[in-house]
């Protein structure tokens, strides 16, 4: 839902990256990229960039460097609330540092039998 006077989404106004505290204060609950607790993210921009960013952003990029991590894992590793991590990750997606994959919306049809089979096989092989 959109209210009058609400600031424009980040994409249209790529200002400087803001400190998480300020960011979460101002934008908690507004998930710019519809991030879910199990949305996976991977860092794509070179490490050299990281030094220029605030510490929390750098931490996220480093932990997502090698393989996809979920919002839940980032939250646990950083000791930050889910809501705060969603905001930080949104910023990094908008700035092109992270790419992401969110689960399909729940309305998108029948269960994926091939996917279930893959998960079943994976658990059997544990």
């Amino acid at each position, binding site marked *: 839902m959109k209210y009058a006077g609400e600031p424009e989404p980040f994409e249209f106004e790529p200002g400087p990256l803001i400190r998480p505290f300020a960011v979460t204060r101002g934008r908690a609950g507004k998930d710019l990229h519809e991030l879910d607790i199990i*949305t996976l993210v991977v860092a794509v921009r070179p490490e050299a960039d990281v030094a220029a960013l605030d510490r929390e952003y750098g931490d996220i990029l480093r932990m997502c460097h090698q393989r996809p991590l979920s919002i839940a894992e980032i939250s646990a590793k950083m000791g930050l609330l889910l809501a705060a991590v969603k905001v930080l990750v949104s910023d990094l997606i908008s700035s092109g540092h992270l790419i992401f994959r969110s*689960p399909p919306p729940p309305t998108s049809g029948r269960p994926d039998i091939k996917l279930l089979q893959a998960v079943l096989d994976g658990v059997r092989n544990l």
Partner: protein
Amino acid sequence: MAFETSDRSAGSPEMTGVRAVKLLVAGGFGVGKTTLVTAVSEIKPLRTEERLSAIGAGVDDLTGVERKTTTTVALDFGRITINSEVVLYLFGTPGQDRFWFMWKELSVGALGAVVLADTRRLEDSFGAIDFFESRGTPFIVAVNCFDGAEIYDEVEVRQALAIDDHVPVQLCDVRDRESSKRVLVRLLEYLMTVATAGAAAGTW
């Protein structure tokens, strides 16, 4: 591995095919949810928190101001890497009844759930069963056999919990990795059955 082309998840094109799925582990306080997640997870289970503020139920009579209360809900979860593209997360739901709104959020998109039950206090799992039945989330019941607890058989548990005949009931010891694995396998087999039956009947 290629999955359905109808991958409508939101995200970056580079990550098409990569996906995370989740299963929930629910049940009353201290029934063994975290123990089950620990037994099968490839990582030491992690804890994430969400702070929730809710307007207090009543309005303060003296000031007429609504009281805002803040609660932190903790979720334990583990991870199992299925293959190069699929990651499975297992979330233990908060044990307390008053945190069900968090379950609601968690249950969206969940493949299915395990309801853990303790035969010494089966009634503690009624809430979870009602919840998943009402949300249409497929689940199985796993009875965690604590030491010294009287062992009931599947039929007795099924009757006591008044669950549908098609819902699997499995006895387990969640401290044992193989036993916990079998619980997940049973759930996933059940999910396959439900999905296949639904597809055949044209439900979807």
